[in-house]
C-alpha cells in the first residue's frame, strides 16, 4: 500500500542503496579483482533488500504498530497471528523482489554484471527456501520485538552491519576465518546468498547447491515452529504483564 502511495521509494530503495554498493565495487576494481566480484557485490546488495525488509517491515512491524496505537485492532481481529504475519511476509517478498530486481538491473546497466544462471529450477528452489527461512526468522523476531520497547528498534539497527559482515554480503564467506564461518552458518541468509551467487554468477546447478537446499529446508521448518511458539508465548506474556498497549517505553 505504502509503495503505491509513495512511488518515490524507487529512488530511496533502489537507486540510492546502489551508491554504497558501487563504492564497494570500485574497491574491487581499484584492486583489479576478477569481474565476478562485481557480481558478488550486486547480488549481495539485492539480498540486503530482503534482509532489511525482514528486519524493518517484518520483525519491527508489530513493535511499530504498538508504538502507533494500531496493535489493539490487530489483536482483536479474529485471525491467526501466523496468518497475519504470513500475509505481511508475502507482501514484503513481492515488494522487495521488485526492489531487488531494480538493484540487479542497475548492476547490469551500470557495471555490466554478467549472470550465467546455471539452473533456473535450482534458482527458484533456492530463492523460495531462502525467503521461507528468512521470513520465518522475521516472524520469530516479530514476536520477540512485540515485547520490547525502543530496544527493538536498536536491535534491528544492530542486526545490519554485523550480519552484512558475517553473512558475506560483499564477499564470499569462504574468505572469513573458520570460527567466523561457523558463526555465519547459524544465519539462514548466509546459505541462501551463497547458493544464489553460485547459481547466478558461477553457473552452478542443482547438485552443486544441494547442501544449501537441505540446510535451508531445516532452517525453514525449525524457524516456523519457533515462530509459532514464540508468538504465542510472547503474546501471553504481554497480556499478563499488560505490555501490549505500552507506547514510547
Amino acid at each position, binding site marked *: *500500500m*505504502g509503495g503505491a*502511495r*509513495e512511488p*518515490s*521509494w524507487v529512488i*530511496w*530503495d533502489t537507486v*540510492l*542503496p*546502489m*551508491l*554504497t554498493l*558501487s*563504492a*564497494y565495487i*570500485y*574497491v*574491487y*576494481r*581499484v*584492486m*583489479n*579483482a*576478477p569481474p565476478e*566480484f562485481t557480481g558478488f557485490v550486486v547480488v549481495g546488495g539485492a539480498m540486503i533488500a530482503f534482509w*532489511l525488509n525482514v528486519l*524493518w*517491515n517484518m520483525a*519491527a512491524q508489530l513493535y*511499530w504498530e504498538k*508504538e*502507533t496505537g*494500531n496493535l489493539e485492532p490487530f489483536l482483536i481481529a479474529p485471525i491467526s497471528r501466523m496468518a497475519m504475519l504470513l500475509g505481511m511476509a508475502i507482501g514484503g517478498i513481492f515488494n522487495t523482489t521488485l526492489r531487488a530486481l531494480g538493484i540487479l538491473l542497475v548492476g547490469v546497466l551500470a557495471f555490466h554484471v554478467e549472470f550465467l544462471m546455471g539452473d533456473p529450477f535450482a534458482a527458484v528452489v533456492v530463492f523460495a527456501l531462502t525467503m521461507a527461512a528468512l521470513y520465518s526468522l522475521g516472524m520469530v523476531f516479530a514476536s520477540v520485538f512485540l515485547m520490547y*520497547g*525502543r*530496544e527493538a*528498534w*536498536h536491535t*534491528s*539497527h*544492530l542486526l*545490519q*552491519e*554485523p550480519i*552484512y*559482515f558475517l553473512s558475506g554480503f*560483499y*564477499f*564470499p564467506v569462504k*574468505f*572469513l576465518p573458520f570460527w567466523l564461518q561457523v558463526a555465519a552458518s547459524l544465519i539462514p541468509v548466509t546459505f541462501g546468498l551463497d547458493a544464489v551467487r553460485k547459481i547466478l554468477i558461477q553457473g552452478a546447478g542443482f547438485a552443486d547447491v544441494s547442501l544449501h537446499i537441505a540446510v535451508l529446508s531445516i532452517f525453514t521448518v525449525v524457524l516456523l515452529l519457533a515462530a509459532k511458539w514464540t508468538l504465542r508465548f510472547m503474546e501471553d506474556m504481554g497480556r499478563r504483564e499488560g505490555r501490549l498497549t505500552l507506547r*514510547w517505553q
Partner: protein
Amino acid sequence: MAVKDVARSFRHSVWLGWKVDANWTDPLLFAIYSVIRPIAGMLIVIFLFLVGSQVGENTDPNYLSYVFVGNTFFILVAQIMLSMGWVIHEDREHYEVLKCIYISPASLYVYLLGRAFSTALMALISVAISLLFGVAVLQMPIDIFLINYAALGLSLIIGLVAISSFGLILASVALLTARHGAGMVGEAVAGIFYLFCGVLFPVSALPPWAQVVSKVLPLTYWMKAVRASMFGVGPAEILNDIAVLAAYTGVFYIVSLGVLRLADYLARDKGLIDITTEY
C-alpha cells in the same frame, strides 16, 4: 530570538537527542551497541581489502590505511545523515511532538542543529573507539605521533558544519515526504558521499562525470584534509583543502537554510506538520 534563548534551545535539543538515542537501555549495553556497528562496518571494508588483495593484482599495503581512515571518519557522515533523515518522522509520527516543537519558543532550525550536534558527539566517540580498535587490535599502520592534530581538529569542525548542512537539507525534505523504509533514507543518502567523496578509493577511479560531482561536494575536500592530517602531511599541503572545504561548506550552509525555510513554509501550507502515514 535573543542569544540566550538560542543557546538554551540548542542545549535542550542536544540533551533531548542524547536521551532519545541513549536512554533506551543501561549504559553498558548502550556502550556495546555503540561500538559493535562501527566495528562491523570497519571489518567489512578491511575484509574487502583482504579479499581484493588475495584475488586481485593490487596489493599495496598503503591502500589498507587509506580505506581504514576513510571508512572510520565516514561514521560521522553516516550517523548524522541517519539521524537527520529520521528525526522529523520520529518526532512527527512516532512521538507526535513535532507540532509541540513548532508552538514552543524554540526555533525548528536551532532544534535540528541541536539534534545533529548530539549525534555528532556520539559519532565522534564511535570514531575514536574505531581508531583505537583499528590501531591496537587490527594493527593498522597509523602513527599517533605523526598526526597533525591542529589540522585534524580544524577539518573536523568545518566538516561537521558541512555534514550538518546536508543533514538539515535531508530533514527539510523529510518534512514534505512520508516515512520510507523505517529511517533508511539517511543511510541511503549517505551513500552519495560514500561513493563520490573518495572515502574508500581515490576519486580518480571514478568516471569523468562522477569526478565533476566529486569536485563540488565539500566532503571530498574534508576526506582529503582528514586523511592528510592523519598521515602527518604538512600544514601547507592541507591548507588548500581546508580552504576549499570552508568555501563549499559556506555555500551549502546557506543553501540548507534556504531549503529548510522553503520546506517549513510548504509543510505548514499543506498541513503536513502533524501528518501520520501509519505505514
